[in-house]
């Protein structure tokens, strides 16, 4: 990006992703939401395009996109269907610890398969007592002769039951330095998928528990050294938080398009309130554009390795997701009682939007992070 505008190449890329998303998802989104589908045939088409391997370096068969272009792609998908944007986004989250902390052999083994969509990934960090507070995680990794034995429970794991491989954090010792990252194969002995969640929205993205009962992970699946898990998590979040911001911008922009179209087509029906609706539309546009620019700027900083990346990641995530939620709530109001029905998609977007304020660190935690960066510890 230069001069705060997209290059022709980026515009063309975004256009292609949007076309693909619309073509595949528009006819399916209603069912994906109602039935909680994870449609493998669409994921396959995403894979063929390269969406499942956006962040995989070219040498491993991926598209090798910088964060900026990843955000651009995810934004387009989210403007049509947020569950689908999660298929892409979660997959990136799952491969980042491997990409950042894995050795060459590990990368050679997994990344090419992730790039082609053969392996879907997941992130196994969160636990019932360790949400915002990652350091209170309890799942244990006990060292044996040539393997670790994992015991514990992970919850709210996206792609549970779908992923072929997860990035796992478990405790090899006490305290902040006692957290270690692992590559977890879905068929590891002693691993099972537990309760699947029933959620308000993003129902096409499956969420569930992972249960570890003396689950064996060989040494060679450890990511980096013991105790490096926290760093892997932070590295992932610096990348995925702007990505959630991009999901939010896409969601908000998608809803806004529908709302604008509805307002245009229903001018007569909306006539008594049209003046105020114009104000509301303007407010939405202001916030969406602000959020978009903040997300782009953040991605740009992250790609250039700027030291403020962490702070900006949190700001972008927080601002964009709060924007998405507010835009959706207002959008349903513009549609009126009809917007409350499944005849229109705005109610689905509104339900979907709420999760963005919560995952990848709640917006409260983002504020804590921002304030820490501002004030210094």
């Amino acid at each position, binding site marked *: 990006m230069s001069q705060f505008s997209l290059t022709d190449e980026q515009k063309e890329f975004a256009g292609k992703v949007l076309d693909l998303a619309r073509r595949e998802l528009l006819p399916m989104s209603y069912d994906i939401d109602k039935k909680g589908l994870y449609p493998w045939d669409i994921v396959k088409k995403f894979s063929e395009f390269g969406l499942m391997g956006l962040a995989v370096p070219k040498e491993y068969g991926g598209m090798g996109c910088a964060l900026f272009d990843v955000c651009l792609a995810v934004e387009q998908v989210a403007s049509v269907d947020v569950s689908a944007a999660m298929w892409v986004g979660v997959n990136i989250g799952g491969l980042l610890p491997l990409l950042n902390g894995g050795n060459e052999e590990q990368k050679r083994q997994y990344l090419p398969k992730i790039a082609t969509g053969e392996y879907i990934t997941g992130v196994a960090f*969160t636990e019932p*007592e360790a*949400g*915002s*507070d990652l350091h*209170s995680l309890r799942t244990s990794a006990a060292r044996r002769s040539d393997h670790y034995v994992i015991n514990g429970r992970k*919850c*709210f794991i996206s792609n549970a039951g779908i992923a072929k491989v997860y990035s796992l954090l478990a405790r090899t010792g006490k305290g902040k330095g006692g957290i270690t990252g692992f590559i977890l194969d879905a068929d590891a002995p002693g691993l099972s998928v537990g309760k699947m*969640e*029933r*959620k*308000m*929205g993003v129902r096409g993205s499956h969420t569930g528990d992972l249960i570890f009962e003396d689950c064996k992970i060989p040494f060679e699946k450890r990511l980096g050294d013991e105790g490096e898990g926290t760093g892997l998590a932070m590295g992932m979040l610096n990348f995925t938080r702007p990505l959630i911001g991009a999901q939010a911008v896409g969601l908000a922009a998608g809803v806004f398009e529908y709302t604008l179209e509805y307002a245009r087509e229903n001018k007569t*029906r909306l006539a*008594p*309130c049209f003046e*105020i*609706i114009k104000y509301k539309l303007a407010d939405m546009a202001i916030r969406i554009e602000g959020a978009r620019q903040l997300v782009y700027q953040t991605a740009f900083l992250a790609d250039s390795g700027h030291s403020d990346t962490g702070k900006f990641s949190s700001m972008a995530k927080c601002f964009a997701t709060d924007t998405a*939620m507010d835009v959706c*709530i207002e959008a*349903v*109001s513009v549609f*009126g*009682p*009809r*917007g*409350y*029905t*499944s*005849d229109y998609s705005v*109610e689905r977007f*509104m*339900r979907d939007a*709420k*999760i963005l*304020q*919560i*995952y990848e660190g*709640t*917006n*409260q935690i983002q*504020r*804590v992070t921002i304030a820490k960066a501002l004030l210094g510890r």
Partner: protein
Amino acid sequence: MSGDYSLTDEQKMVRDTVRRMAQEKIAPLAAEIDDTGVFPSVIREQFKELGLFGLAFPEAYGGSEMGILSSALVLEEIGRICSSSAIICAAPITTGLLILEYGSDQQKKSFIPGIVSGNTTTAVALFETDAGSDPERIATYAEKAGDRYVINGKKGLVDLADEAGLIIVFARTKNSGKPQDISAFIIEKDLTPWSIERTVEKMGTTAIHACELVFEGCAIPQKNRMGEEGGGQIIAARARGLNCILAAARGLGIAQGALDYALNYTKERVQFGRPISSFQGIQFMLADMAALVETGRYLLYKACAEVDRGQAEGYYFGAMAKCFISDAAMKVATDAIQLLGGYGYMKDHPVERMMRDAKLIQLVEGTNYTQHIFLAEGLLGL
């Protein structure tokens, strides 16, 4: 409510009784009601047993003459637990009060006792797809034919029309372009059944089915016209006024319920070695939520008290309360999910349902946009 803004002992007793009943009888079913979207007849029976439909009606009709404030208290308590159930309780109250105010003696005698006892279920059909809730743009037509009216047209999103035995329908009796074109009619299902073209899927309050109604040559006796021919506009405004108050009460319940749930959760949830309620960032959210709930509550009670004193401005406060409380409920429920984090987004906890249910209240009886315009017209004397 007396002048010192406190509830009477009688009102407190009603509130506490319903609070207990809602906790015992509705709470265990609330999630299932939402999931299945099946109308919970068993809860209607509870309301009947406790005489909740008749609180605001004169004793002469079997009511307990306790005013609309008592009904609001009841709906608030039910709304804390289950918004669908609150609508079941509210719908007949609006219908009954309309008949009480605008109906003929014969209509009052025939219909109100059944409504008060809970034997008659009702609905109000105002909304049309192309007219919204704006009575002036109603297209449904009632053609006079001898001692009958023949109604043709469609109504959209009529809550409970599939359960109702009686519907108040607003239809055009003239095409002069004046407010006096609209009249109100009472349609009894036993005499002239209506057909339901479709029930519409929606985001929340799923057990209250929003129906699209079709009237094709639906002939009703002239005696079932409510009020004068051409008096429908005024009745529609009153229907909206009453519904605003009752919807606000339901919304207040949602807000209170979501706040209570989030309060308990934040006290119990430990992160970073302490309950999250000990963080100022969380405390500020809780305090803001509580302030919205309390402010909304007294605005609503004020509206009810004025209506019960026979002051027309009560409905003006009621419209304000509907706007304020529905926005508050939406914000409080959304924040309650936020305070529960990932748990709040799951159907294992009620706050996501509360958020979905809260959204509806911003949209009914004219969206809050429409209500704001109405309020501004009042302020500006337009």
